[in-house]
């Protein structure tokens, strides 16, 4: 899972004012049939570039741009997610056949497909054990590592043959969770080429000892720290994915050519695939409007101009990503924490957020509400009817009534005061006045909090707004620890949470007691048990129980979610599927004749 920052519109509004004043419209039409070859250029989001090639990614480089949109073009995981617009496993793009779990779900047997590395060597179980040994010895450096998860929960790897191995787990796990959130992160790497401790050293079984595995990891990391050699270093040319890196610049430009040895069912049809970095959305928009990219995006603030850009030969297609948006409360706040701990108060606050209104008015219809930890879009088997049904609908009068019934004297457009029994820890005289820090630089985020402030005022809740850069908001939102100043009350960074490399939305990083990204220090033993049930028990029932409880309990305030980007895809480019996991599959693309 990856914390998502909101897009910054920059100068986009201004750009379109100029565009409308000065430009005309033309149009192109795609024709039937596709042609082999050609170069497709993808515009990367402003300031977002791939900058790390080694698949065991460290914290500084743990990003969608590196994992889903760079490394996975070259090295495929055991199980690749994102299938036909849904957050489900993509069998043809995966490196292994479906995992087979034992009856007690404590052993899982994996059979690799008969794929070849680009240098002609077969992909074998040894390539998996090589990865696993490196992970075990260097887990603290692996950004995806969570204590207790893989590799900790794998007691043994038993190799049956060159293509089959069994993972012996420490206890039974939900096959759905284990495949989605554990196995999907594991991508075999070429032992026959990478198992060395220096550039001149011999390839051997160095990884089979902890010290050796550390030395190999250090060597590979040292190579990864030379980005100017990414396209020329022979190490990184040994791939099992459909693409090989042919050119890379440290500004983030990356060009790929087809891996001729790729053994998967979908072979690249393009001659070349380019990821083009852009300084800002404005720079990208300029190039898009001059037809300089095949696959670009429209800044959200310019969505009303989509038809004008479509007239220039593009298809408008919002990219629905697999994520949620929310605002954490600081339950650990010594001043207002006791108020936040009252469920009725959180319910009242949620009833003051007009999610549907935000979507239609601020997002221009390109968004959808968040009602719980499981996204309601794209269509998926996990979201429950209760969550889909929006448990707390917008109702300032309902919120006011709820507060009144719990001992608050309401002062509309003022500050309401506790004059009765307002709940455990809430003193008589307590006021409904809170500070809210939100991320600057995104007009829509600013509009959202302003609208919320107005609605809250109707119930006598005063929100004192202050803007700060995204980085500061994230820094401020760190979980409070004893002995440290803990002054934040409510924060909103505007981008929510993307379920990327952990596609099963189990909430173990945000809502579990003490979890690293549980910014508000929410802690509920029932919820913890529900999360563990999702991880350990088969079937969808535990997931439904978990999400319904979270939707009802409001550990955070749910906010509407926006697409990852408003894509503009050249009408000549065929076969583009926008994965909710945000991975790219350009091997499926081709140009129309």
């Amino acid at each position, binding site marked *: 899972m990856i914390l998502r920052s909101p897009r910054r519109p920059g100068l986009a509004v201004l750009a379109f004012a100029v565009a409308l004043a000065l430009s005309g419209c033309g149009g192109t039409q795609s024709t039937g049939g596709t042609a082999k070859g050609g170069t497709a250029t993808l515009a990367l989001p402003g300031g977002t570039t791939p900058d790390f090639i080694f698949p065991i990614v460290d914290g*500084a480089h743990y990003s969608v741009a590196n994992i889903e949109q760079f490394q996975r073009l070259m090295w495929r995981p055991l199980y690749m997610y994102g299938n036909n617009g849904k957050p489900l496993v993509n069998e043809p793009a995966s490196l292994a056949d479906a995992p087979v779990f034992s009856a007690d779900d404590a052993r899982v047997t994996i059979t690799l497909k008969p794929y070849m590395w680009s240098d002609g060597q077969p992909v074998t179980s040894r390539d998996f054990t090589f990865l696993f040994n490196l992970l075990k010895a260097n887990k603290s450096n692996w950004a995806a590592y969570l204590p207790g998860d893989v590799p900790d929960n794998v007691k043994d790897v038993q190799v049956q043959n060159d293509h089959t191995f069994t993972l012996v787990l420490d206890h039974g796990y939900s096959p759905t969770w284990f495949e989605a959130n554990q196995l999907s992160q594991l991508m075999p790497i070429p032992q026959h080429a990478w198992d060395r401790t220096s550039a001149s050293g011999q390839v051997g079984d160095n990884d089979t000892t902890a010290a050796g595995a550390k030395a190999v990891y250090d060597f590979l990391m040292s190579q990864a720290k030379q980005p100017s050699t990414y396209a020329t270093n022979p190490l990184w040319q040994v791939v099992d994915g459909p693409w090989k890196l042919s050119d890379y610049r440290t500004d983030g430009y990356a060009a790929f050519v087809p891996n001729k040895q790729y053994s998967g069912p979908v072979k690249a049809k393009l001659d070349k695939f380019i990821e083009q970095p852009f300084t800002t959305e404005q720079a990208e928009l300029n190039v898009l*409007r001059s037809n300089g990219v095949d696959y670009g995006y429209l800044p959200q603030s310019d969505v009303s101009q989509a038809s004008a850009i479509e007239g220039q030969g593009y298809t408008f297609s919002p990219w629905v990503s697999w994520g949620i948006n929310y605002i954490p409360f600081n339950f650990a706040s010594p001043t207002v924490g006791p108020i936040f701990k009252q469920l009725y108060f959180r319910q009242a606050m949620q009833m003051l957020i007009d999610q549907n209104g935000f979507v239609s008015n601020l997002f221009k219809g390109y968004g959808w509400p968040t009602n719980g930890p499981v996204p309601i879009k794209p269509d998926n088997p996990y979201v429950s009817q209760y969550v889909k049904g929006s448990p707390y609908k917008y109702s300032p009068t309902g919120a006011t009534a709820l507060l009144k019934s719990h001992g608050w004297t309401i002062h509309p457009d003022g500050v309401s005061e506790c004059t009765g029994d307002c709940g455990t820890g809430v003193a008589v005289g307590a006021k409904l006045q809170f500070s809210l820090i939100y991320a600057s630089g995104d007009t829509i985020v600013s509009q959202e909090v302003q609208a919320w402030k107005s609605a809250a005022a109707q119930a006598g809740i005063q929100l004192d707004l202050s803007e700060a850069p995204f980085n500061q908001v994230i820094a401020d939102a760190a979980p409070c620890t004893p002995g440290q100043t803990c002054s934040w009350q409510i924060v909103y960074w505007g981008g929510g949470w993307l379920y990327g490399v952990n596609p099963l939305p189990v909430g173990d990083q945000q809502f579990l007691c003490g979890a690293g990204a549980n910014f508000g220090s929410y802690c509920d033993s029932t919820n913890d048990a529900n999360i563990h049930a999702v991880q350990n028990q088969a079937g969808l029932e535990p997931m439904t129980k978990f999400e319904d409880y979270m939707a009802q309990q409001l550990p955070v305030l749910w906010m509407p979610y926006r697409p990852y980007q408003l894509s503009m895809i050249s009408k000549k480019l065929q076969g583009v599927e926008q994965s909710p996991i945000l991975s790219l599959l350009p091997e499926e693309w081709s140009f129309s004749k």
Partner: protein
Amino acid sequence: MTGYIARRAVQAVVVLLLVTVIVFVMLHALPGGTARAVLGERATNVAIAQFEKQNGFDQPLPVQYWRWLDRVLHGDLGFSYKQNESVSELLAERLPKTMLLAGVSVLLALLVAIPLGFVQALRRNRLIDYVLTGGAFLFYSTPAFWLALVLVTLFAIRFRIFPAQAPQGSIGQILADPAGLVLPVLTIALVSIAFFSRYVRSSTLENLMQDYVRTARAKGASTMRVAFRHVLRNALVPVVTLVGLSLPFVFAGTLISEEIFNYPGTGLLFYNAAVARDYPVLLGVTLVVGVATVMGSLLADICYALLDPRVRLTRERP
């Protein structure tokens, strides 16, 4: 002259030290911190504390500053955790591109601005002066980003004469695609032309009223001879200083131009570093620009003193 240069050099060093202190303090006051940027959003407080201890970020700011300055003086500008390269290497790759953009823009601006300003002064209060003055004010008051957008819309989107994106890649690849440089260069140059031409005009007017002009005319020199042999040379002396002092202004212009035209120079490097909280890069770029500005100012002063002996004589014999 040596004394004058020495005094100015000492002043420059002091200014540079002040620049480094201000930059260092300001960047360390920024939120987020290097540790979280490097270790990721899921890093625990313990891991962050360990990282800060290992890298000396838990030390008092003056100690951190002294260590950083010591490394800088030994040629080590630090290492970019985000981009996996030394800051020196990153700057070595990007700075020449920015210098190319800035250099071509300033050169073009001077080549156009000097004749324009000169003609305006010679035709003072005539139609051509009014027209050129109006044009200069228009461009001078136009924000660079707005001008860039207008240029893109007109020449890249409407008429499709020049690309909307600057050439990418190495210096060689950039030079191989001069059409791609036209709009980025024009964005900086048009504003700079307005800026320089106003100075040339006023400097020329000032010289036209000097005694030596009257003397030359009294000796029978033609108007053209007076203008080109005497006035122009003297009018250009302040422009030398101006070019040096305009470096921050030009850098700001390149920053905007690089962002709008997606030019892979120092501006992009700085922007991405700011987004990623890549402090070593931010410090390095700011330091280099600061040094360039101070050195530009110093060189301009020295050139001015060489061109106009009165400057150094005034200093040496107060």
